[in-house]
Protein backbone atom coordinates (compact mmCIF):
# COMPACT_ATOMS: atom_id res chain seq x y z
CA UNK A 1 0.00 0.00 0.00
CA UNK A 2 1.29 3.47 -0.88
CA UNK A 3 1.65 5.83 2.02
CA UNK A 4 0.08 9.21 1.49
CA UNK A 5 2.76 11.68 2.58
CA UNK A 6 0.80 14.78 1.73
CA UNK A 7 -0.84 15.42 5.14
CA UNK A 8 2.54 15.03 6.88
CA UNK A 9 4.34 17.38 4.52
CA UNK A 10 1.53 19.93 4.73
CA UNK A 11 1.44 19.81 8.53
CA UNK A 12 5.19 20.24 8.59
CA UNK A 13 4.90 23.22 6.24
CA UNK A 14 2.25 24.83 8.48
CA UNK A 15 4.48 24.32 11.52
CA UNK A 16 7.46 25.80 9.66
CA UNK A 17 5.44 28.85 8.65
CA UNK A 18 4.06 29.43 12.15
CA UNK A 19 7.35 28.69 13.91
CA UNK A 20 8.99 32.12 13.37
CA UNK A 21 5.93 33.92 14.75
CA UNK A 22 5.74 31.70 17.81
CA UNK A 23 9.49 31.74 18.38
CA UNK A 24 9.75 35.52 18.16
CA UNK A 25 6.88 36.03 20.62
CA UNK A 26 8.50 33.45 22.90
CA UNK A 27 11.89 35.16 22.68
CA UNK A 28 10.30 38.54 23.37
CA UNK A 29 8.84 37.11 26.59
CA UNK A 30 12.13 35.61 27.70
CA UNK A 31 15.17 36.89 29.49
CA UNK A 32 18.24 35.36 31.09
CA UNK A 33 18.23 32.69 28.39
CA UNK A 34 21.83 31.54 28.25
CA UNK A 35 23.46 28.71 26.37
CA UNK A 36 22.96 25.76 26.79
CA UNK A 37 19.51 26.19 28.37
CA UNK A 38 16.74 25.05 26.07
CA UNK A 39 14.20 26.89 28.20
CA UNK A 40 14.71 30.47 29.44
CA UNK A 41 14.99 31.05 33.18
CA UNK A 42 12.44 33.87 32.97
CA UNK A 43 9.31 33.90 30.85
CA UNK A 44 6.79 36.67 31.28
CA UNK A 45 5.69 40.10 30.22
CA UNK A 46 8.59 42.02 31.76
CA UNK A 47 10.01 43.16 28.40
CA UNK A 48 6.62 44.15 27.06
CA UNK A 49 5.76 46.12 30.19
CA UNK A 50 9.11 47.94 30.02
CA UNK A 51 8.51 48.78 26.37
CA UNK A 52 4.99 50.01 26.87
CA UNK A 53 6.22 51.99 29.83
CA UNK A 54 8.06 53.70 26.94
CA UNK A 55 11.57 52.78 27.96
CA UNK A 56 13.88 51.85 25.08
CA UNK A 57 11.80 54.09 22.83
CA UNK A 58 10.15 51.21 21.03
CA UNK A 59 6.70 52.65 21.21
CA UNK A 60 7.82 55.93 19.70
CA UNK A 61 9.64 53.94 17.00
CA UNK A 62 6.41 52.13 16.26
CA UNK A 63 4.59 55.42 15.78
CA UNK A 64 7.43 56.93 13.74
CA UNK A 65 7.35 53.89 11.47
CA UNK A 66 3.59 54.16 11.19
CA UNK A 67 3.71 57.86 10.37
CA UNK A 68 6.50 57.42 7.80
CA UNK A 69 4.87 54.42 6.13
CA UNK A 70 1.43 56.04 5.97
CA UNK A 71 2.91 59.21 4.47
CA UNK A 72 4.96 57.26 1.92
CA UNK A 73 1.94 55.09 1.01
CA UNK A 74 -0.38 58.09 0.61
CA UNK A 75 2.07 60.18 -1.43
CA UNK A 76 3.34 57.39 -3.66
CA UNK A 77 -0.07 55.86 -4.34
CA UNK A 78 -1.66 59.22 -5.16
CA UNK A 79 1.17 60.53 -7.29
CA UNK A 80 1.80 57.10 -8.86
CA UNK A 81 -1.84 56.86 -9.90
CA UNK A 82 -2.14 60.37 -11.28
CA UNK A 83 1.24 60.49 -13.00
CA UNK A 84 0.95 56.97 -14.42
CA UNK A 85 -1.92 58.22 -16.54
CA UNK A 86 0.32 60.75 -18.29
CA UNK A 87 3.06 58.12 -18.69
CA UNK A 88 0.97 55.26 -20.01
CA UNK A 89 -1.02 57.35 -22.46
CA UNK A 90 2.17 58.93 -23.77
CA UNK A 91 3.41 57.90 -27.25
CA UNK A 92 6.86 57.19 -25.76
CA UNK A 93 5.46 55.08 -22.95
CA UNK A 94 7.92 52.20 -23.54
CA UNK A 95 10.95 54.39 -22.94
CA UNK A 96 9.33 56.13 -19.98
CA UNK A 97 8.45 52.78 -18.40
CA UNK A 98 12.03 51.65 -18.82
CA UNK A 99 13.24 54.80 -17.07
CA UNK A 100 10.91 54.06 -14.16
CA UNK A 101 12.54 50.67 -13.64
CA UNK A 102 16.04 52.01 -12.91
CA UNK A 103 15.45 53.49 -9.44
CA UNK A 104 13.10 50.65 -8.62
CA UNK A 105 15.57 47.82 -9.15
CA UNK A 106 18.65 49.52 -7.75
CA UNK A 107 19.37 48.46 -4.15
CA UNK A 108 17.74 51.19 -2.02
CA UNK A 109 20.74 51.39 0.27
CA UNK A 110 23.13 52.08 -2.63
CA UNK A 111 20.70 54.58 -4.10
CA UNK A 112 20.51 56.35 -0.74
CA UNK A 113 24.29 56.41 -0.37
CA UNK A 114 24.64 58.10 -3.76
CA UNK A 115 21.80 60.54 -2.97
CA UNK A 116 22.87 61.42 0.56
CA UNK A 117 24.94 64.42 -0.59
CA UNK A 118 21.84 66.07 -2.07
CA UNK A 119 19.80 65.31 1.05
CA UNK A 120 22.51 66.89 3.15
CA UNK A 121 22.47 70.02 0.97
CA UNK A 122 18.69 70.27 1.18
CA UNK A 123 18.64 69.86 4.96
CA UNK A 124 16.85 66.53 4.67
CA UNK A 125 19.57 64.46 6.28
CA UNK A 126 18.86 62.80 9.62
CA UNK A 127 15.23 63.85 9.90
CA UNK A 128 11.88 62.25 9.33
CA UNK A 129 10.96 64.38 6.31
CA UNK A 130 14.17 63.26 4.64
CA UNK A 131 13.36 59.59 5.25
CA UNK A 132 9.82 60.06 3.88
CA UNK A 133 11.18 61.83 0.77
CA UNK A 134 13.85 59.17 0.22
CA UNK A 135 11.42 56.30 0.64
CA UNK A 136 8.96 58.08 -1.60
CA UNK A 137 11.61 58.17 -4.35
CA UNK A 138 11.77 54.36 -4.35
CA UNK A 139 8.08 53.71 -3.68
CA UNK A 140 6.94 56.06 -6.43
CA UNK A 141 8.31 54.02 -9.39
CA UNK A 142 6.75 50.94 -7.85
CA UNK A 143 3.35 52.63 -7.62
CA UNK A 144 3.71 54.03 -11.12
CA UNK A 145 4.56 50.65 -12.64
CA UNK A 146 1.82 49.08 -10.58
CA UNK A 147 -0.83 51.12 -12.39
CA UNK A 148 0.64 50.39 -15.84
CA UNK A 149 -2.11 48.04 -16.95
CA UNK A 150 -4.96 50.10 -15.54
CA UNK A 151 -4.72 52.81 -18.19
CA UNK A 152 -5.96 50.90 -21.20
CA UNK A 153 -8.26 51.50 -24.15
CA UNK A 154 -11.33 50.53 -22.15
CA UNK A 155 -10.75 53.15 -19.45
CA UNK A 156 -9.94 55.71 -22.13
CA UNK A 157 -13.24 54.93 -23.88
CA UNK A 158 -15.12 55.39 -20.61
CA UNK A 159 -13.43 58.75 -20.12
CA UNK A 160 -14.32 59.79 -23.66
CA UNK A 161 -17.88 58.68 -23.09
CA UNK A 162 -18.21 60.86 -19.98
CA UNK A 163 -16.83 63.83 -21.93
CA UNK A 164 -19.25 63.15 -24.81
CA UNK A 165 -22.12 63.07 -22.35
CA UNK A 166 -21.06 66.47 -21.03
CA UNK A 167 -19.16 65.43 -17.91
CA UNK A 168 -16.16 67.45 -16.77
CA UNK A 169 -12.74 66.24 -15.60
CA UNK A 170 -13.83 66.11 -11.96
CA UNK A 171 -16.84 64.00 -12.78
CA UNK A 172 -14.75 61.70 -14.97
CA UNK A 173 -12.49 61.00 -12.02
CA UNK A 174 -15.05 60.77 -9.25
CA UNK A 175 -17.77 58.91 -11.12
CA UNK A 176 -15.77 56.63 -13.43
CA UNK A 177 -11.98 56.41 -13.05
CA UNK A 178 -11.71 56.22 -9.25
CA UNK A 179 -14.53 53.66 -8.79
CA UNK A 180 -12.88 51.54 -11.49
CA UNK A 181 -9.44 51.82 -9.88
CA UNK A 182 -10.59 51.50 -6.26
CA UNK A 183 -9.37 47.94 -5.74
CA UNK A 184 -6.00 48.58 -7.36
CA UNK A 185 -5.47 51.79 -5.39
CA UNK A 186 -6.08 49.87 -2.18
CA UNK A 187 -3.55 47.17 -3.08
CA UNK A 188 -1.01 49.76 -4.16
CA UNK A 189 -1.47 51.58 -0.87
CA UNK A 190 -0.93 48.33 0.99
CA UNK A 191 2.17 47.41 -1.02
CA UNK A 192 3.84 50.82 -0.76
CA UNK A 193 3.03 50.88 2.96
CA UNK A 194 4.88 47.56 3.29
CA UNK A 195 7.83 48.76 1.18
CA UNK A 196 8.25 51.61 3.63
CA UNK A 197 7.43 49.58 6.76
CA UNK A 198 10.08 46.96 5.90
CA UNK A 199 12.73 49.41 4.70
CA UNK A 200 16.05 49.35 6.49
CA UNK A 201 19.06 50.27 4.33
CA UNK A 202 17.82 53.55 2.92
CA UNK A 203 16.38 54.66 6.28
CA UNK A 204 19.67 53.93 8.03
CA UNK A 205 21.63 56.02 5.49
CA UNK A 206 19.28 59.03 5.21
CA UNK A 207 18.10 58.88 8.84
CA UNK A 208 21.72 58.38 10.07
CA UNK A 209 20.41 56.62 13.16
CA UNK A 210 18.42 59.65 14.30
CA UNK A 211 15.18 58.49 12.70
CA UNK A 212 14.62 55.29 14.57
CA UNK A 213 12.03 53.25 12.78
CA UNK A 214 11.32 49.71 13.96
CA UNK A 215 13.72 48.12 11.45
CA UNK A 216 16.49 50.42 12.71
CA UNK A 217 15.63 49.40 16.28
CA UNK A 218 15.80 45.70 15.42
CA UNK A 219 19.28 46.17 14.04
CA UNK A 220 20.40 48.29 17.00
CA UNK A 221 19.24 45.59 19.41
CA UNK A 222 21.03 42.93 17.38
CA UNK A 223 24.23 44.98 17.58
CA UNK A 224 23.80 45.38 21.35
CA UNK A 225 23.09 41.62 21.59
CA UNK A 226 19.81 42.49 23.30
CA UNK A 227 17.91 39.72 21.57
CA UNK A 228 14.80 39.91 23.75
CA UNK A 229 14.10 43.51 22.78
CA UNK A 230 15.14 42.61 19.24
CA UNK A 231 12.46 39.92 19.15
CA UNK A 232 9.96 42.34 20.64
CA UNK A 233 10.65 44.88 17.92
CA UNK A 234 10.31 42.09 15.35
CA UNK A 235 6.86 41.31 16.79
CA UNK A 236 5.82 44.95 16.47
CA UNK A 237 7.20 44.91 12.94
CA UNK A 238 5.44 41.78 11.67
CA UNK A 239 2.04 41.81 13.34
CA UNK A 240 0.55 44.90 11.64
CA UNK A 241 1.33 43.42 8.18
CA UNK A 242 -0.28 40.14 9.28
CA UNK A 243 -3.49 42.04 10.03
CA UNK A 244 -3.24 43.89 6.73
CA UNK A 245 -2.61 40.63 4.90
CA UNK A 246 -5.66 39.10 6.45
CA UNK A 247 -7.80 41.83 4.93
CA UNK A 248 -5.92 42.04 1.68
CA UNK A 249 -4.82 38.55 0.79
CA UNK A 250 -7.38 38.12 -1.91
CA UNK A 251 -6.11 41.29 -3.59
CA UNK A 252 -2.37 40.94 -3.19
CA UNK A 253 -1.77 38.95 -6.33
CA UNK A 254 -4.59 40.25 -8.43
CA UNK A 255 -2.38 42.76 -10.13
CA UNK A 256 0.67 40.59 -10.62
CA UNK A 257 -0.92 37.82 -12.61
Amino acid at each position, binding site marked *: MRINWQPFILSLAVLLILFP*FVYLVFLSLASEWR*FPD*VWPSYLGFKNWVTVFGSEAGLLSSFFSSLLISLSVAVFSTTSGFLISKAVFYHPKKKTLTLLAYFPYIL*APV*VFAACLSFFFLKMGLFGNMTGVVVAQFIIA*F*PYALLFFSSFWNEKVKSYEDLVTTLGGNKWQTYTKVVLPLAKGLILICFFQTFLISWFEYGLTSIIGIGKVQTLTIK*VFLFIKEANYYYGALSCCLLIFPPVVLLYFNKRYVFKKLV
Partner: protein
Amino acid sequence: MKIKKPNIGIVLFLLIGVVPFAAAFIYALLYSFGVIGVANNGFTLQFWESVLASGTFFKSFGYSFIIAFVAVTSSVGGALWITLKFRKQLEKQFLSFIIYLPLAIPGIVTGFFTFQLFSKGGFFARISYKLGLITKASEFPDLVNDGLAFGIILSFITMIMPFFVLLFLNVYKNERVEELSVLAQSLGADANQITRKVFLPILIQKTWVLIVLYFIFLLGAYEVPLILGQESPQMLSVLIIQEIKQYDLDKISEGYVVAVLYTLIVSAAAIVLFLPKRKRVYAN
Protein backbone atom coordinates in the same frame (compact mmCIF):
# COMPACT_ATOMS: atom_id res chain seq x y z
CA MET B 1 -5.53 72.68 -21.95
CA LYS B 2 -5.74 69.14 -23.26
CA ILE B 3 -2.13 69.13 -24.37
CA LYS B 4 -0.86 70.84 -21.26
CA LYS B 5 -2.06 68.34 -18.66
CA PRO B 6 -0.19 65.25 -19.81
CA ASN B 7 2.93 67.40 -20.04
CA ILE B 8 2.70 68.32 -16.36
CA GLY B 9 2.40 64.62 -15.60
CA ILE B 10 5.49 63.81 -17.65
CA VAL B 11 7.46 66.65 -16.08
CA LEU B 12 6.51 65.39 -12.61
CA PHE B 13 7.44 61.86 -13.62
CA LEU B 14 10.85 63.01 -14.79
CA LEU B 15 11.32 65.07 -11.63
CA ILE B 16 10.46 62.28 -9.19
CA GLY B 17 11.30 59.15 -11.14
CA VAL B 18 14.29 60.07 -13.27
CA VAL B 19 16.11 63.12 -11.86
CA PRO B 20 17.05 61.54 -8.48
CA PHE B 21 18.42 58.44 -10.20
CA ALA B 22 20.37 60.50 -12.73
CA ALA B 23 21.67 62.83 -9.99
CA ALA B 24 22.74 59.89 -7.81
CA PHE B 25 24.48 58.21 -10.72
CA ILE B 26 26.29 61.36 -11.87
CA TYR B 27 27.37 62.11 -8.29
CA ALA B 28 28.78 58.58 -7.86
CA LEU B 29 30.45 58.77 -11.27
CA LEU B 30 32.12 62.13 -10.53
CA TYR B 31 33.21 60.91 -7.11
CA SER B 32 34.67 57.73 -8.60
CA PHE B 33 36.79 59.82 -11.00
CA GLY B 34 37.97 62.09 -8.21
CA VAL B 35 36.24 65.18 -9.65
CA ILE B 36 34.31 65.75 -6.42
CA GLY B 37 34.88 64.54 -2.88
CA VAL B 38 36.60 65.83 0.22
CA ALA B 39 40.19 64.84 -0.48
CA ASN B 40 40.00 64.59 -4.26
CA ASN B 41 41.86 67.09 -6.46
CA GLY B 42 40.54 66.57 -9.93
CA PHE B 43 40.08 63.91 -12.57
CA THR B 44 41.96 60.69 -11.97
CA LEU B 45 41.63 57.06 -12.98
CA GLN B 46 43.46 55.94 -9.86
CA PHE B 47 40.37 54.68 -8.01
CA TRP B 48 39.07 52.74 -10.98
CA GLU B 49 42.48 51.19 -11.53
CA SER B 50 42.82 50.18 -7.92
CA VAL B 51 39.32 48.65 -7.78
CA LEU B 52 39.81 46.76 -11.03
CA ALA B 53 43.31 45.61 -10.00
CA SER B 54 42.31 44.47 -6.51
CA GLY B 55 39.51 42.35 -7.90
CA THR B 56 37.30 43.11 -4.86
CA PHE B 57 34.41 44.06 -7.07
CA PHE B 58 34.59 40.93 -9.22
CA LYS B 59 34.95 38.70 -6.18
CA SER B 60 32.02 40.38 -4.48
CA PHE B 61 29.92 40.37 -7.64
CA GLY B 62 30.64 36.68 -8.29
CA TYR B 63 29.84 35.86 -4.67
CA SER B 64 26.55 37.80 -4.77
CA PHE B 65 25.69 36.30 -8.15
CA ILE B 66 26.16 32.72 -6.95
CA ILE B 67 24.19 33.31 -3.73
CA ALA B 68 21.32 35.00 -5.59
CA PHE B 69 21.35 32.32 -8.28
CA VAL B 70 21.29 29.40 -5.82
CA ALA B 71 18.54 31.07 -3.77
CA VAL B 72 16.35 31.90 -6.77
CA THR B 73 16.70 28.52 -8.50
CA SER B 74 16.04 26.60 -5.28
CA SER B 75 13.06 28.79 -4.45
CA VAL B 76 11.55 28.58 -7.92
CA GLY B 77 12.20 24.83 -8.11
CA GLY B 78 10.71 24.26 -4.66
CA ALA B 79 7.74 26.48 -5.36
CA LEU B 80 7.01 24.68 -8.64
CA TRP B 81 7.13 21.34 -6.85
CA ILE B 82 4.81 22.55 -4.08
CA THR B 83 2.37 24.00 -6.62
CA LEU B 84 2.39 20.78 -8.61
CA LYS B 85 1.91 18.51 -5.59
CA PHE B 86 -0.21 20.52 -3.17
CA ARG B 87 -2.20 22.93 -5.26
CA LYS B 88 -5.61 21.60 -4.25
CA GLN B 89 -4.86 21.55 -0.53
CA LEU B 90 -3.39 25.05 -0.62
CA GLU B 91 -6.66 26.45 -1.91
CA LYS B 92 -8.52 25.37 1.21
CA GLN B 93 -9.64 28.01 3.68
CA PHE B 94 -7.08 27.57 6.46
CA LEU B 95 -4.01 26.92 4.32
CA SER B 96 -4.89 29.65 1.85
CA PHE B 97 -4.34 32.21 4.62
CA ILE B 98 -1.39 30.49 6.28
CA ILE B 99 0.66 30.55 3.08
CA TYR B 100 0.35 34.33 2.96
CA LEU B 101 1.90 34.77 6.41
CA PRO B 102 5.57 34.63 5.31
CA LEU B 103 4.95 37.78 3.23
CA ALA B 104 4.60 39.68 6.52
CA ILE B 105 8.20 38.98 7.50
CA PRO B 106 10.79 41.49 6.25
CA GLY B 107 14.42 40.72 5.45
CA ILE B 108 15.79 42.13 8.67
CA VAL B 109 13.52 39.88 10.76
CA THR B 110 14.42 36.85 8.64
CA GLY B 111 18.09 37.63 9.18
CA PHE B 112 17.61 38.05 12.93
CA PHE B 113 15.55 34.87 13.18
CA THR B 114 18.03 32.78 11.17
CA PHE B 115 20.79 34.08 13.42
CA GLN B 116 18.80 33.11 16.53
CA LEU B 117 18.32 29.58 15.24
CA PHE B 118 21.64 28.74 13.61
CA SER B 119 24.33 30.66 15.47
CA LYS B 120 26.71 28.89 17.81
CA GLY B 121 24.67 29.81 20.87
CA GLY B 122 21.35 29.56 19.04
CA PHE B 123 18.31 27.38 19.28
CA PHE B 124 19.69 24.42 17.30
CA ALA B 125 23.02 24.58 19.13
CA ARG B 126 21.11 24.29 22.44
CA ILE B 127 19.14 21.32 21.16
CA SER B 128 22.32 19.68 19.84
CA TYR B 129 23.86 20.15 23.28
CA LYS B 130 20.83 18.61 24.98
CA LEU B 131 20.98 15.65 22.59
CA GLY B 132 24.65 15.21 23.37
CA LEU B 133 25.78 15.96 19.81
CA ILE B 134 28.07 18.76 21.00
CA THR B 135 29.70 19.46 24.34
CA LYS B 136 30.32 23.19 23.93
CA ALA B 137 28.94 25.98 21.76
CA SER B 138 32.06 26.27 19.59
CA GLU B 139 31.58 22.70 18.35
CA PHE B 140 28.40 23.69 16.57
CA PRO B 141 29.10 24.07 12.81
CA ASP B 142 29.41 27.56 11.26
CA LEU B 143 26.00 28.13 9.78
CA VAL B 144 25.87 31.91 10.07
CA ASN B 145 28.58 34.39 9.02
CA ASP B 146 30.07 31.40 7.20
CA GLY B 147 32.08 31.04 3.99
CA LEU B 148 29.43 29.05 2.16
CA ALA B 149 26.79 31.67 2.99
CA PHE B 150 24.47 28.99 4.33
CA GLY B 151 22.62 31.45 6.55
CA ILE B 152 22.14 34.01 3.79
CA ILE B 153 20.92 31.46 1.24
CA LEU B 154 18.55 29.86 3.74
CA SER B 155 17.11 33.27 4.64
CA PHE B 156 16.66 34.21 0.99
CA ILE B 157 14.90 30.93 0.26
CA THR B 158 12.53 31.32 3.20
CA MET B 159 11.85 34.89 2.10
CA ILE B 160 11.09 34.31 -1.56
CA MET B 161 9.85 30.74 -1.91
CA PRO B 162 6.46 31.52 -0.32
CA PHE B 163 6.08 34.41 -2.74
CA PHE B 164 6.73 32.13 -5.71
CA VAL B 165 4.30 29.49 -4.42
CA LEU B 166 1.56 32.13 -4.28
CA LEU B 167 2.56 33.49 -7.66
CA PHE B 168 2.48 30.06 -9.33
CA LEU B 169 -0.86 29.20 -7.70
CA ASN B 170 -2.30 32.38 -9.17
CA VAL B 171 -0.84 31.80 -12.62
CA TYR B 172 -2.13 28.23 -12.50
CA LYS B 173 -5.62 29.51 -11.91
CA ASN B 174 -5.53 32.49 -14.25
CA GLU B 175 -3.95 30.67 -17.18
CA ARG B 176 -6.39 27.79 -16.78
CA VAL B 177 -3.59 25.24 -16.57
CA GLU B 178 -6.06 22.78 -15.04
CA GLU B 179 -8.27 22.81 -18.14
CA LEU B 180 -5.26 22.58 -20.43
CA SER B 181 -3.98 19.59 -18.46
CA VAL B 182 -7.33 17.84 -18.79
CA LEU B 183 -7.28 18.56 -22.50
CA ALA B 184 -3.73 17.20 -22.82
CA GLN B 185 -4.76 14.12 -20.87
CA SER B 186 -7.75 13.49 -23.12
CA LEU B 187 -5.38 13.74 -26.09
CA GLY B 188 -3.33 10.94 -24.57
CA ALA B 189 -0.59 12.73 -22.61
CA ASP B 190 0.62 11.07 -19.42
CA ALA B 191 1.25 12.88 -16.12
CA ASN B 192 4.93 13.35 -16.89
CA GLN B 193 4.24 14.88 -20.29
CA ILE B 194 1.62 17.20 -18.82
CA THR B 195 4.17 18.47 -16.32
CA ARG B 196 6.89 18.99 -18.91
CA LYS B 197 4.82 20.27 -21.83
CA VAL B 198 1.98 22.12 -20.15
CA PHE B 199 2.61 22.94 -16.48
CA LEU B 200 6.26 24.02 -16.50
CA PRO B 201 6.32 25.98 -19.79
CA ILE B 202 3.23 28.03 -18.91
CA LEU B 203 4.27 28.80 -15.35
CA ILE B 204 7.86 29.69 -16.23
CA GLN B 205 6.96 31.68 -19.32
CA LYS B 206 4.40 33.77 -17.48
CA THR B 207 6.67 34.56 -14.56
CA TRP B 208 10.23 34.67 -15.88
CA VAL B 209 10.41 38.46 -15.70
CA LEU B 210 9.52 38.37 -12.01
CA ILE B 211 12.02 35.56 -11.48
CA VAL B 212 14.78 37.69 -13.02
CA LEU B 213 13.61 40.75 -11.04
CA TYR B 214 13.89 38.76 -7.82
CA PHE B 215 17.36 37.67 -8.82
CA ILE B 216 18.31 41.35 -9.27
CA PHE B 217 16.76 42.23 -5.88
CA LEU B 218 18.76 39.51 -4.15
CA LEU B 219 21.92 40.63 -5.91
CA GLY B 220 21.54 44.00 -4.19
CA ALA B 221 20.17 42.68 -0.90
CA TYR B 222 21.51 44.45 2.18
CA GLU B 223 19.94 43.57 5.54
CA VAL B 224 20.31 39.78 5.43
CA PRO B 225 23.98 39.73 4.36
CA LEU B 226 24.68 42.52 6.86
CA ILE B 227 23.51 40.28 9.70
CA LEU B 228 24.53 36.88 8.36
CA GLY B 229 27.42 37.59 6.00
CA GLN B 230 31.13 37.08 6.57
CA GLU B 231 33.94 39.64 6.44
CA SER B 232 35.21 38.74 2.99
CA PRO B 233 33.98 38.43 0.32
CA GLN B 234 30.87 40.44 1.04
CA MET B 235 27.71 40.86 -0.92
CA LEU B 236 27.68 43.93 -3.16
CA SER B 237 25.51 46.35 -1.17
CA VAL B 238 27.33 45.61 2.07
CA LEU B 239 30.69 46.13 0.38
CA ILE B 240 29.59 49.43 -1.21
CA ILE B 241 28.22 50.87 2.04
CA GLN B 242 31.21 49.73 4.04
CA GLU B 243 33.63 51.44 1.63
CA ILE B 244 31.57 54.63 1.34
CA LYS B 245 31.26 54.97 5.10
CA GLN B 246 34.98 54.49 5.76
CA TYR B 247 37.28 57.06 7.30
CA ASP B 248 39.94 56.29 4.70
CA LEU B 249 39.05 58.91 2.08
CA ASP B 250 40.52 56.95 -0.85
CA LYS B 251 38.24 54.07 0.04
CA ILE B 252 35.18 56.31 -0.29
CA SER B 253 36.00 57.00 -3.94
CA GLU B 254 36.61 53.29 -4.48
CA GLY B 255 33.22 52.59 -2.92
CA TYR B 256 31.66 54.87 -5.51
CA VAL B 257 33.51 53.00 -8.29
CA VAL B 258 31.83 49.79 -7.10
CA ALA B 259 28.48 51.61 -6.85
CA VAL B 260 28.84 52.86 -10.45
CA LEU B 261 29.75 49.38 -11.73
CA TYR B 262 26.82 47.83 -9.89
CA THR B 263 24.40 50.50 -11.18
CA LEU B 264 25.62 49.94 -14.74
CA ILE B 265 25.06 46.19 -14.51
CA VAL B 266 21.58 46.55 -13.01
CA SER B 267 20.65 49.19 -15.58
CA ALA B 268 21.87 46.98 -18.44
CA ALA B 269 19.79 44.13 -17.02
CA ALA B 270 16.75 46.42 -16.90
CA ILE B 271 17.25 47.43 -20.53
CA VAL B 272 17.59 43.81 -21.67
CA LEU B 273 14.56 42.79 -19.60
CA PHE B 274 12.13 45.54 -20.40
CA LEU B 275 13.00 47.25 -23.64
CA PRO B 276 12.45 44.73 -26.44
CA LYS B 277 9.02 43.55 -25.35
CA ARG B 278 5.95 45.44 -26.36
CA LYS B 279 4.00 44.89 -23.18
CA ARG B 280 4.99 43.53 -19.80
CA VAL B 281 1.86 42.86 -17.88
CA TYR B 282 3.43 40.38 -15.51
CA ALA B 283 6.12 42.59 -14.08
CA ASN B 284 3.68 45.25 -12.98
